[in-house]
């Protein structure tokens, strides 16, 4: 590929060069800009999904469902003590009643006078006791069964739910958005290739006479296609860098705005260094795509003439 950029100056002059004079660099800049945004969104969703999944995969909640408050307290205390003694369990936290009420309050609405209290409803609802668990490893069926076996003798009605089950629909949505973003990247790459094909054909048409002369003087298809490849590669690189700069600026700006929101999932839409590395490689990949497409187009067109 390096030889592409070291074509002697006099050979380069065979086809007049006009950097930024045609629409090609601008079209590629727009395509790369959109690709950078779509890739960033896809990668951000990937990372967010992974983060959430990592955080919740080793967490579970134990519900102690018992109508008698004293018995519920006793069972909760016993179950927490047993869980703390289990090797599988890393952290045990019994949620205070107030915290459970705070969690449920938004779903019960406000009191008639518009105040924050729920109008005494909470006192009438038999809330379960909740124990938040953090395990030493991701929870599978085996781990769930071990937990159940451990606390069943102490609280027969206890229910254990892995946290990942609660967030599964959100994760599925995040995954869908991630694949939509990557699908967009592929569509944009196809559109870029199509733009390169159109541009290469137009350039071939413009320089038909010159190409004909070079051919009849003994120029090979490779010599001729190299001239077009180089020109289109430089256009693509120029447009790509422009698109990357604009795209990266938007991503950083959006990142700052999302951070200011302070929302759980959205806040985690930060990009890691390797995601930035992938985004940084987009102009280079775009240039390679443009070069290969240009070469195939030019070689294909030249083969049609003797």
């Amino acid at each position: 590929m390096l030889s592409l950029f070291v074509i002697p100056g006099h050979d380069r002059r065979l086809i007049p060069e006009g950097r930024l004079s045609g629409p090609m660099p601008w079209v590629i800049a727009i395509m790369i800009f959109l690709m950078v945004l779509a890739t960033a969104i896809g990668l951000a969703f990937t990372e967010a999904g992974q983060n959430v999944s990592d955080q919740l995969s080793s967490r579970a909640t134990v519900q102690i469902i018992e109508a008698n408050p004293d018995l519920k307290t006793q069972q909760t205390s016993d179950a927490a003590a047993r869980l703390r003694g289990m090797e599988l369990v890393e952290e045990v936290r019994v949620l205070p009643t107030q915290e459970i009420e705070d969690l449920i309050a938004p779903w019960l609405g406000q009191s008639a006078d518009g105040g924050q209290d729920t109008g005494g409803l909470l006192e009438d609802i038999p809330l379960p006791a909740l124990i938040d668990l953090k395990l030493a490893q991701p929870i599978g069926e085996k781990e769930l069964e071990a937990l159940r076996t451990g606390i069943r003798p102490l609280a027969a009605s206890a229910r254990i739910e892995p946290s990942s089950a609660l967030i599964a629909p959100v994760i599925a949505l995040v995954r869908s958005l991630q694949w939509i973003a990557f699908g967009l990247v592929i569509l944009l790459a196809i559109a870029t290739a199509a733009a390169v094909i159109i541009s290469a054909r137009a350039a071939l048409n413009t320089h038909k006479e010159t190409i004909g002369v070079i051919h009849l003087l003994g120029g090979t298809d490779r010599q001729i296609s190299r001239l077009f490849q180089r020109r289109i590669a430089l256009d693509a690189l120029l447009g790509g860098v422009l698109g990357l700069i604009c795209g990266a600026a938007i991503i950083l700006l959006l990142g700052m705005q999302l951070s200011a929101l302070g929302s759980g999932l959205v806040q985690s839409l930060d990009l890691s260094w390797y995601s930035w590395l992938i985004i940084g490689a987009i102009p280079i990949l775009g240039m390679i795509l443009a070069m290969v497409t240009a070469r195939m187009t030019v070689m294909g067109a030249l083969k049609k003439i003797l």
Partner: protein
Amino acid sequence: MNEIVQFENVGLRYGAGIETLSDLTFTLYPGSFYFLTGASGAGKTSLLKLLYLAQRPSRGLIRLFGEDAVTMPRERLPGFRRRIGVVFQDFRLVPHLSAFDNIALPLRVAGVKEKDLTTPVAEMLDWVGLGDRAEARPATLSGGEQQRVAIARAVIGRPEILVADEPTGNVDPEMAIRLLQLFEALNTLGTTIVVATHDIHLLSKVPGAQMMKLEKGGLSDPTGSLRNPPLPRDRA
């Protein structure tokens, strides 16, 4: 004498039309000088196109430098084309290149290093009387000057065959004679020359040159040289 070009029952048809060239059978020998004459539309340019490999025949056999040029793979054509110099009727100079760069084009295509082409190109410019127009673009040159650049470009690579389509059509009689002398000098060095012209008077300017006459796509052979090797030219 080994033949350099051999045509056997060659026919050329464009699309579904009638044959532009029919049953051409002739042989060109190395170091010979040929004039190809005929009225406009007789097929001179089409015959030259077959000679400089811009066109494949519809039928028949063409042997060039001892090899079958009809079935030759496309990838091998550039190598053969570099052995043929062509002066096009419409010059076909590259418009954005200077006279110097246009003349240097065959050498650059052949991969000659820049330091090795400056002197021969400058000499060639002087030879065609354009030493002071090296940097001029074709658009700023007169028709005659463009023609001389086209001729210089055709001969710079010392081709084994030089094919010229009406090379004196745009120059004054004095320059026409100078160009013919240029071709003769090249011929003396061993290059086979084929000059298409409708100017029958040019023949007398090149002693010993052979004549091929095209009439309605067929070839007549007034000097008989196309069936037998020509006698050595009287270069005196």
